[in-house]
């Protein structure tokens, strides 16, 4: 009986958290489209999320593209399908790897720092101070971060797509001995607009998830340094899980026949 009660309690807690996050998300989005706007803060967050995440996303997608070409070759060579490598690399990178890896890397880098920064502001009463200074914390702290996440992740993924495909090209040409012109032709032959667009839509969704989780957990952190630590962990873990779940949902929406 106790065991069942425990399951029931956990389920209720889960529903409560989901409801809270949904209310927070709707409230945050509504503040994104209503004035006052803070262009200076939005710009700062765009630089932080977009520009400073570029090296980590570039390295991740570069090596993913490289290893993808290598793995595909060793597998496809068993049934003489090496010519499919360029297509496999470009589709895997644009549809899946670039958005998911960029989302996860940005969750680690940006989600954690947002939760820590906003959480510290919460426990040191800086968020209360904003309220007393006639400034809505949702507009000042949350909306700029969410707007920056929504716009910067697609740009990062677009760059990641190019670098990832380039990684596959380097390995295919310089290590596996492919013909450069043929490889480039094969890359573009089977690539469709929807492949890139679906990845960019995913990136926008992941940018929203990462910034929302960072802001939500930071904003609701309690109890000093330990509370901020817990908020940071929760922000990264919940963002990573939601990215993987929504990755499936969006793939289903775009490609399920």
């Amino acid at each position, binding site marked *: 009986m106790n065991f069942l009660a425990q399951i029931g309690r956990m389920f209720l807690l889960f529903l409560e958290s989901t409801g809270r996050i949904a209310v927070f998300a709707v409230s945050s989005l509504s503040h994104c489209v209503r004035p006052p706007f803070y262009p200076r803060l939005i710009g700062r967050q765009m630089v932080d999320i977009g520009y400073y995440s570029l090296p980590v996303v570039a390295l991740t997608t570069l090596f993913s593209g490289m290893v993808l070409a290598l793995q595909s070759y060793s597998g496809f060579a068993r049934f003489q399908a090496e010519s499919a490598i360029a297509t496999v690399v470009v589709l895997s990178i644009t549809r899946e790897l670039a958005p998911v890896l960029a989302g996860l890397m940005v969750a680690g880098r940006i989600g954690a720092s947002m939760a820590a920064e906003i959480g510290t502001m919460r426990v*040191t*009463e800086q968020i*209360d101070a904003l*309220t*007393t*200074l*006639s*400034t809505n914390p949702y507009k000042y702290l949350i909306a700029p971060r969410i707007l920056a996440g929504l716009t910067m992740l697609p740009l990062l993924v677009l760059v990641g797509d190019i670098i990832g495909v380039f990684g596959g090209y380097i390995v295919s040409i310089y290590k596996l001995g492919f013909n450069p012109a043929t490889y480039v032709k094969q890359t573009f032959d089977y690539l469709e607009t929807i492949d890139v667009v679906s990845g960019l839509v995913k990136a926008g969704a992941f940018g929203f998830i990462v910034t929302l989780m960072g802001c939500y957990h930071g904003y609701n952190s309690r109890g000093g340094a330990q509370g901020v630590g817990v908020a940071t962990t929760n922000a990264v873990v919940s963002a990573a899980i939601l990215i993987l779940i929504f990755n499936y949902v969006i793939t289903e929406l775009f490609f399920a026949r």
Partner: protein
Amino acid sequence: MSTESPKIKIRDLHKGFGSKQVLKGVNLDVGRSESLVVIGGSGTGKSVLLKSVLGIIHPDRGSIEVDGEDVVHLSARERERVNTKFGMLFQGGALFDSLPVWENVAFGLIQGKRMPRSEAKVIALEKLASVGLGADVGELWPAELSGGMQKRVALARAIATEPEIIFFDEPTTGLDPIMADVINGLIVECVRRLGASALSITHDMSSVRKIADRVAMLYNGQIIWVGPVADIDNSGNEYVDQFINGRAEGPIQMQVRG
């Protein structure tokens, strides 16, 4: 207190967290241009009372009026309008780490009153000067300041918009006695110069004697005594006597073990 309507009027204010009732029917008035200090032990709900007036905490029951307007049920936008009347000095300063000192002081002017940054900076530096800090401090970051300097900056921020009501949350906590006296002196000077009403909470009795016109004692979620600061030593209330003399023996029993 004068006979005109109070600046802040609190009636039957209740607030609980889970099963714990912190405020159990608080009634309190803060007069115009009056400095009222609420005293009471740790955990008696002083901060909850202050945050309820500021709109940071939503009370369960009761009313809070500012200039005759009920502020408990305001929308977020209306609350922002009412908050332009307020200035607040937080216990830990609550300065924004990501902004230089001058921008912290000018924050209410730039964001709240939409003043151009250059104009707001001039006023911020004037306010810093009024709390004894030079223009060079304005370019520093909050983390570079000592505790006393942070309190001064926080005071400058609280008065920058020339508010009608200023709130002080434990203004001398964590300061040495001399710096505490300096801060108390600045509070008195700033409040008088602005002609503002002030609502403070503290358990520092030297601070109470210096900044208060009237004193109210909060105990067990209710105001148990209110009177002029001059009467505090002859309040005739054994709870107040025990508190202001800092005696362990008396009607207030501190829970030493859980």
